[in-house]
Each structure stands twice: as C-alpha cells, then as structure tokens.
C-alpha cells in the first residue's frame, strides 16, 4: 500500500493535470465541507505524529492554538530536511508538490490560517522551483489566492529559501531565520503555537506530516490510525542509506520491523559483509547494535529501546566501517552546526570534535572515553535547544556500545605516547 508515495513514479506527477487525474485535490474539496474542528478531531483520531523528528501528535499541536488571540495565525512548513541520513521530503516536493499544497490547504482551513510559508533548505533549488510552479498552477486554477475553490477563504503560500544552516531545521531557529535574523533557537515556552512567527500563533509542521493530512481525510482518522501501530498512526517514508544494496526511500507502515526494512526492502548487505551498527532515525539518534534491530520502527518502540525514531533516516554500517572514525565525522558535523548560544553546547561540541579527531589521528588515551562521556553529559539538560543533546547522544551511544573499537585506539595511542596520558587528563 502506498499513500504519499503513490504518485512518485507517475510521469509528470508534479503537474496539476496529472495530479488531478490521480486523485489530487479531491480531499480538500471534501474538507471544505467539514467543520475545521471536525478535521482537527480526525487528525487526532488518526494518531498522525510529527514526522520531522520529534513525533509530537499533529492534531494535538493544532489544538494548542489560542482561541482568543486576535493576531493572524501562520502555518509554516518545515522543508529544511537537514538531519544527516534523511532525504524523504525531497521526494514529496519533487514528485508530488500538489499533494503538499493540498495538505497545506486542508491544514490552513482547519486552523484558520491565511498565510503559509514553506521554509525550504537553500540547496533545494530544484524543489523550490517545482513548488513555485505548482503554486502558480494552483493559483491560476482558483485553488489558492483570494479564494480557495470559490470559498471566501484567501490563502497565500510563500516559498522561503534557507541558506545553509542545520540548526534552522529546529522550529524556533527556523522562525527567527524566517524573520530575517540569525537562526538562533528560542527558549520554550512560549511554544510557536502560542507565540511563533512575528510573535503570532504559528503551527510548524514537517513536509511529510502535512502531506499525510489529505490521506487522513480520504481514509478517515480511524482507518488511517489502524495502518500503523498503537498511538503511531499511518505510514511514513523511511530513508535508508549507507551499506545496503538498495539504498532509497521506502513508504511503509509505522511499526515496520527495522530488520525487515534493512534486509528486505533495502536489499540487505553486500556479499560477505557483516552488520556492525544501525543509526535508526537520522544522525542524532543513538546507535543500535545488530542485536537490537529486531524492533518495530515507531516512536514509542524506539524510545523504549533507548533511541529515537526521529526523521527515520536509517544509516547502515557494516564491518568495513570504522566506528570511531564514523563518530568523529558526526562530532565534526555537530561542532560545525552548533549555533554557539549556549556555552556547554558550543564548547562541548568543539571539545568532542577535537578529542575524536586526535584519537583518529594519533591514537587514544585511556581517559578519552570517560572524558567524552563527561563532556556529552554536561551538555544534556544545559542547552536551549535539542541540538546539544543530538550531539551528545551519539557520542555516549557509540562509546557505551562499541567499547572494543575505542579500546583499540587507546591501545595504539598508549603504546605510541605513554607519557602524554597525565597531561590528557586535564582537559
């Protein structure tokens, strides 16, 4: 069964006429006959979770909008797609931009918002153009603009390009960036639903989350919920990359077994290789060992396993991959992307990077694993936004689950430079 990926392989599916031949814009027509609150109730019943990473139930987020605030409300679609290992929203925007627009229309009607910004990562030049063209087509058809399908409900959709900053995927950073500022995350509360873009009530949702909204309307909340697992409704796009035969983006029910995704859908490992580790939900999610991957890919199961479903960017590492070097690559990324507002994150990510780079270049010291863990733990809980934690969890996870890989470096380092350990303890 396919929902958001149904038209991915249809030639010219980004065009309005083709999309309408394949069921496009039927759900918005149905939704416009429904009361906004009924739509929100359906989305709640659907157990549609936020697919950008945090997994917050979409319908519940929508109900947090203040009822008595006279300011305008905004819908902001998060198309920043920055989490390493994640490449799914691209498929929706490239192949079915009208599905996203239909979702935007339904959501805007449900939450009574007349302006939507799509914040798209700057590198998606092609996708931004496709979206602009789709918006123009929808406007010309009278689906968007002053009226929506003849109804007195104006709606403008604006494509806003980011400019290369991973942190701007974080929703409050994104809002500052949209306001024309440096993308510094804001302290929460207030949450964007109460005080978001220009201090107005704002709903931020991921591209994929919004693109499932038409399917909630088509199937009904209950049916949609039943496609997934408990409290994790429907399906989602899993991005699979790394050491598999068929890397790609696969739409499967929430709760699909991770082992099956890797070994069946993504074609399994290359001949003669052995599985070493799996990062299940984008680079920020704690790593799993081969013994831990027989589990349902949904938000609650991954949390119970001590990891995160996150963006469902599955990165597969086989026995040809050096995990200490892999961790150094991740540490370099987080050190580069820390916005620098919080001292523990700014300094901590820098130190973790330096230590890991040194371990890779010169070998380790026996104090390294403990120091890395101490630095990582000092960031958690002491930062404005979750990037700090995202940088720390992989370090803690790799060090705890693959101690033998670190031990090899330590052995090498200690034989090479036995006298430096005392100095190293003082960082």
């Amino acid at each position, binding site marked *: 069964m396919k929902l958001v990926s149904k038209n991915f392989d249809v030639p010219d599916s980004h065009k309005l006429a083709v999309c309408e031949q394949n069921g496009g814009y039927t759900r918005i027509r149905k939704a416009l006959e429904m009361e906004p609150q009924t739509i929100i109730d359906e989305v709640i019943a659907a157990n549609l979770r936020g697919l950008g990473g945090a997994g917050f139930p979409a319908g519940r987020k929508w109900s947090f909008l203040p009822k008595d605030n006279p300011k305008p409300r905004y819908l902001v679609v998060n198309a920043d797609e920055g989490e390493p290992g994640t490449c799914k929203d691209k498929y929706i925007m490239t192949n079915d931009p009208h599905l996203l627009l239909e979702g935007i229309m339904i959501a805007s009607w449900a939450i009574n918002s007349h302006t939507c910004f799509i914040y798209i990562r700057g590198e998606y030049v092609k996708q931004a153009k496709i979206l602009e063209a789709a918006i123009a087509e929808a406007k010309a058809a009278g689906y968007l603009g002053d009226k929506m399908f003849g109804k007195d409900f104006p709606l403008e959709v604006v494509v806003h390009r980011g400019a*290369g900053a991973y942190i701007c995927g974080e929703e409050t950073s994104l809002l500052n960036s949209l306001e024309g500022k440096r993308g510094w995350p804001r302290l929460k509360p207030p949450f964007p639903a109460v005080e978001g873009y220009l201090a107005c009530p704002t709903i931020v949702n991921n591209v994929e989350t919004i693109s499932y909204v038409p399917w909630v309307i088509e199937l009904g909340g209950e049916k949609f919920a039943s496609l997934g697992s408990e409290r994790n409704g429907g399906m989602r796009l899993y991005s699979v990359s790394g050491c598999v035969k068929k890397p790609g983006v696969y739409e499967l029910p929430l709760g699909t077994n991770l082992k099956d995704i890797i070994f069946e859908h993504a074609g399994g490992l290359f001949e003669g290789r052995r599985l070493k580790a799996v990062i299940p939900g984008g680079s920020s999610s704690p790593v799993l060992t081969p013994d831990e991957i027989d589990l349902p890919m949904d938000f609650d199961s991954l949390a119970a396993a001590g990891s995160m479903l996150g963006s469902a960017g599955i990165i597969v590492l086989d026995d040809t991959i050096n995990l200490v070097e892999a961790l150094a690559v991740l540490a370099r990324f987080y050190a580069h992307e820390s916005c620098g507002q919080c001292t523990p994150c700014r300094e901590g990510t820098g130190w973790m990077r330096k230590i890991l780079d040194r371990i890779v270049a010169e070998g380790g010291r026996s104090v390294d694993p403990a120091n890395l863990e101490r630095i990582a733990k000092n960031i958690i809980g002491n930062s404005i936004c979750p990037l700090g934690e995202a940088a720390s969890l992989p370090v803690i996870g790799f060090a705890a689950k693959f101690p033998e890989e670190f031990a090899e470096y330590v052995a090498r380092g200690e034989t090479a430079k036995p006298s430096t350990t005392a100095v190293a303890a003082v960082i």
Partner: protein
Amino acid sequence: MNNAETTTSKPEFSAAAQEELETIFSRYPDRRSAMLMVLHLAQREFGYISPGVEELVAEVMERPVTEIHGVVTFYTMYNTKPVGKYHIQLCRNISCWIKNAPGLLEYLKSRLGIDVGQTTSDGKFTLSEVECLAHCENAPTMQINDDIICDLTKEKIDRLIDELK
C-alpha cells in the same frame, strides 16, 4: 578587502533585480522577513556578498549594516569572498563518508590542483566541503552551483570537470 575593491563604485541592483525585490517584499507581512531571499538575490547579482553589497542590502532592507553582516556570516551559503565560476561543494557527512567521500575529496584536490577553500588560478573552480545535502540515498554527492550530483565516482568527476573546463 583590497584597494581595488574599496575604490570601485558602490554596487547597484539591476532594473530586473529591483523588480524582483518588490515582488519579494510583497510576499511578507514585514520587510525584515525578506532578508534571506534578498541576500540570495544579491548573491546571484554580484557573485558574492562583499562589504559593499552588505551596505546595499542594508539600504534596501532599511536595517543597520552590522545586522546584515551578522546574518550573512551565520549562513554557509552566502559567500563573503569571490568564488570561481563553478563552486564545487562535496558532502562530507556520514552517508557520503561511508561511500568514500574522503577519497573523492583527495581526488578532486589533485584533479583541480587546489585545496579546500581555494579557487583555481583561472577562476573556474572553487572547492568546498559541506554537510549533508539530503541526497544520502544516492551518496556520495556534491553540488556544482545549483545542481546536485549523486552517485559520484572518480570517472564521473573526470567527465564533469572535462565538460566544464
């Protein structure tokens, strides 16, 4: 900033760009929100965001130039130095790293005869490293100007560079 640059006259937006500016401003409820889009336009017009361009943007944005500078330097896509005709940006993040991005980086360096952050003497190519380009399923990847190129190999790099030379 060199002397040649300080003495050149202040940059101006072309008539077409000015029209585009108006369209951009009309899309936002406040002027400041247009910042990133205006900077993208400025970079397209002038190639990179020089101090002179920052001043021009400050004027049209009606904001202090220090603020413009703060924004420009926060985002990696705005070039504060001139770049070559073709800006090659190789992804160095995890999925591409797994697929031998470091090997390809060395290859690009020797093929172009430059290091990361440098431009070839003919002004054609600038080489940079970037973080995940969100094409991880087709790693390794790199970007040349607005295009993203996937499933990179040395042979593919050779073909591309020969075509652009």
